[in-house]
């Protein structure tokens, strides 16, 4: 039987799997990084209130993860290790910062990342070997 570990969604899976994620709202975890990316790319003012209500209720139901000072510290060290490997351009590493934070939260909370961008998280796995990742296609 599959081990019950917790799914943690990358922003890329929204809104493609809305009905499936709805069934997982109380058994998965959501990161504040996803809210950062959703808000930063939003256009209409009205959507912000809806994201805020969703965020508040996730928090109320103990489903929201926020990176701690320690998480930022350890994520920085992980990205530094990637930087020192010199296999990627600094611009690519900058683009991986948020993914690395999501990855860190997944590792710390015994979760696994569900994403459309498996390749990016496989780069992070080079420096976070206990990180587990599953493509959205396989998960859903």
């Amino acid at each position, binding site marked *: 039987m599959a081990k019950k*570990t917790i799914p943690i969604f990358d922003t890329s899976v929204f809104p493609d799997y809305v009905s499936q994620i709805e069934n997982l709202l109380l058994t998965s975890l959501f990161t504040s990084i996803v809210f950062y990316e959703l808000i930063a790319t939003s256009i209409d003012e009205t959507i912000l209130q809806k994201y805020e209500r969703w965020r508040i209720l996730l928090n109320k139901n103990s489903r929201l993860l926020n990176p701690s000072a320690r998480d930022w510290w350890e994520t920085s060290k992980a990205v530094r290790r990637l930087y020192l490997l010199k296999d990627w351009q600094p611009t690519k590493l900058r683009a991986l910062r948020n993914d690395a934070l999501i990855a860190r939260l997944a590792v710390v909370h015994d979760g696994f990342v569900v994403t459309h961008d498996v390749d990016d998280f496989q780069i992070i796995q080079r420096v976070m070997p206990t990180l587990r990742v599953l493509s959205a296609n396989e*998960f859903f």
Partner: protein
Amino acid sequence: MKNAPKKSEKNGSDLPRAKDFKLPKRLTKDQKELIEAFREAMKALKEEEARYGKKDYSYF
């Protein structure tokens, strides 16, 4: 290597799938509100994508 993940852990074949999780039959008020808030947020996101195009989060 010590603490290295097994091959099945690395490729995700040991991980649960969406069908392995279910909502509880009875929901509290807070849980119902969460589901409703999620629906509304995703409806708004879909409408925005229909209006302005698919979002790209890859550069964050």
